[in-house]
C-alpha cells in the first residue's frame, strides 16, 4: 500500500496515453474533475475514448481534438441545454459514438466493476440505440421465460477521473454532495482512478457520520490531486455552485470564429492558479450560489 498517493495534476494526467479509454465522473454540469480535464487539455494526448454522463468537459475534449470515440447518454450543461462544442463534433461526424440510455450506461460501468462481460437490460429495446449500434447484442434468458434482453457490454475504463470534496493521502475520499451520482461505479470500472479533491489531509480522522460520505474504497484510488475549486465551472455542492458567467463565456466560444482558441488562450494555456485568478479566485468561487432547481 502506498502511504502517500498524492500526485500533481501533471503527474496524474501523464499516465494517460494515446488511445486510452477515459471515464469522467460527475453528471452534466455537476462535480466534473475540471482541473484534471484542463491538465489533459494541456497535453498532446489524442485518440481517446471518453466515457461520461457528459457536461462541458466533453465539449472541451472534443474541441481540442482529443476524442476519437464518445460513449455517452447526453451532453448538456442543464441551464444551457445544448453543449456547443459537443454539437459541432457530433454534427461534423468527427467522432465515433456509442450513444446509450443513461441506465444502460450505469449497467455498463457496473458490469466492468464486477468483471462481467455484460449485464442484461430492457433499456434500449425497440430504439435506434440498438438499431444503430452494431456493437450492441441481445441475449435470451436461459430460463423458461426465454425473454430477450440487450446484453449491455462492460464499459471497462483504463483511467477514471473524479472530483471529491475531501481526501487523504491514502486515497480515502468523501463525497459530500447530496447526490453521489455514479462516481463509485467509475472508480470500480477503471484500472486506474485519479481523484482531485477540494481538501487534502494526511490521514482522515472521521466521525462515524462523516465516514458515511466515503463511497468507494481507497484501494480503488491510484492518485490524489489537491485541486481546490477543481470542479469549476461546474457545480460542486456543498462547496460551491456552478459559475454561470463562465459557462456562458464558454458557450459563446462555440459561436465565435476562433472562439475555442481564444478560450484556450485565456483559460487553458495558463497555470491552474492563473485560471482561478481569472475567475475571481477561490474567494469568489466559494460564493457561487448552488443552483435552485
Amino acid at each position, binding site marked *: 500500500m502506498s502511504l502517500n498517493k498524492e500526485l500533481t495534476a501533471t503527474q496524474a494526467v501523464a499516465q494517460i496515453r494515446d488511445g486510452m479509454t477515459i471515464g469522467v465522473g460527475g453528471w452534466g454540469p455537476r462535480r466534473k474533475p475540471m482541473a484534471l480535464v484542463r491538465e489533459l487539455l494541456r497535453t498532446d494526448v489524442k485518440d481517446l475514448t471518453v466515457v461520461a454522463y457528459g457536461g462541458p468537459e466533453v465539449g472541451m475534449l472534443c474541441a481540442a481534438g482529443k476524442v476519437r470515440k464518445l460513449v455517452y447518454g447526453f451532453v448538456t450543461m442543464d441551464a444551457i441545454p445544448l453543449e456547443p462544442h459537443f454539437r459541432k463534433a457530433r454534427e461534423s461526424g468527427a467522432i465515433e459514438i456509442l450513444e446509450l*440510455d443513461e441506465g444502460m450506461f*450505469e449497467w455498463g460501468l457496473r458490469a466492468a466493476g464486477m468483471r462481467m462481460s455484460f449485464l442484461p437490460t*430492457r433499456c434500449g429495446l425497440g*430504439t435506434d440505440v440498438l438499431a444503430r449500434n452494431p456493437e450492441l447484442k441481445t441475449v435470451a434468458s436461459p430460463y423458461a421465460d426465454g425473454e430477450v434482453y440487450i446484453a449491455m457490454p462492460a464499459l471497462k475504463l483504463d483511467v477514471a477521473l473524479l472530483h471529491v470534496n475531501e481526501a487523504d493521502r491514502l486515497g480515502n475520499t468523501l463525497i459530500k454532495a447530496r447526490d453521489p451520482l455514479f462516481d463509485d461505479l467509475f472508480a470500480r470500472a477503471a484500472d486506474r482512478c485519479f481523484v482531485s479533491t477540494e481538501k487534502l489531509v494526511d490521514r482522515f480522522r472521521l466521525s462515524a457520520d462523516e465516514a458515511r460520505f466515503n463511497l468507494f474504497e481507497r484501494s480503488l484510488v491510484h492518485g490524489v490531486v489537491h485541486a481546490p475549486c477543481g470542479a469549476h465551472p461546474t457545480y460542486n455542492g456543498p462547496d460551491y455552485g456552478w459559475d454561470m458567467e463562465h459557462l456562458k463565456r464558454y458557450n459563446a466560444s462555440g459561436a465565435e470564429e476562433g472562439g475555442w482558441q481564444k478560450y484556450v488562450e485565456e483559460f487553458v494555456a495558463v497555470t491552474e492558479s492563473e485560471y482561478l485568478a481569472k475567475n475571481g479566485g477561490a474567494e469568489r468561487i466559494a460564493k457561487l450560489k448552488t443552483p435552485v432547481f
Partner: protein
Amino acid sequence: MTATLAELMIVAASECWRGDGEVLASGIGIVPRLGASLAKLTHAPELLMTDSETMLVSEPIPLGPRGDYVPRYEGYLSFNRVFECVWGGKRHAMIGPTQVDRFGQSNLSVVGGTYQKPKSAILGVRGLPGNQINHANSFFIPNHGPRVFVAGEVDMVSGPGYNPARFAPGMRMDFIDLRRIVTDLCVMDFGGPEHAVRVRSLHPGVTFEQVQAATGFPLLQAPNLGETPLPTDEQLSIIRGLDPHGLRASTVKNDPPARRAS
C-alpha cells in the same frame, strides 16, 4: 380569474397523473412540473415527488427563487434510486421530446442529415429508452406542428413506442405505457385501434381540422371528443402559488388567454 393557455395546459398535464397511485411523478420542464405539482396538491396526494434534485418532498416545491420557503423533505431519491424506480416501473414521467411519431416513439438525440452526420445534435437519448420501455410516460409539446409530430418515424428513435416492427420475438413491449400528449392545441392519447393516436379534447377555439393539419400523421377523434376544461379558480390560485415568478408564461409564445378567438 382569466386563465392563460399555459395554465390550461398545466391543468391538462395534471390530469395525466390521475389514478396512478404511489408512483414517482416526474414532470420535466415548467408545465409538466407544475402539472405534477397541481396533481399532488389536488386529486393525487399519494404521488411521490422530488425537489427536482435529490430529496423526496411531501409538498411540491415552488419554481424559481424560493425566498424563505422551507422544503418539506420526506425522503431521499438520488439519480441512482430514480433508475431503480424506472426499472421497477414505479414512475410516470412527462417530458418534452423534440419529435414524436404515430407510434409514440420519441426523439431527443439528433434531427436531420444522417445518424453519423446529423444536421442538428440535441442532447442525446438521455433516459428515454429506459423510461419508455419500463413505465408510464406522457409528453408535453408546446409547439404542436408537423416538425414535432412527424410523418413516418422520428429521426432517431430514443424512446420506444407501439411499433412491433422494432421488436424481435422474445422482446417484451408490454411494459410500454404511453398515456397522453398535452400540446398547445389539444390533448391526445394512444387509445385508438393498435394504439393509434386520438384527439381526446380540443383547447377552446381549436378545431380538429386545425390539429390534423399541424400533425404529420393521421389522427382519430375520441368518441367523447370535447373541449379541454378551463382551469377552476381553485386550480389557478394553486398554480399561481407554485409559480410565483410566472415562469409558466415563457412556455408558449405570448401565452394567450386559454379561450382564444376562433
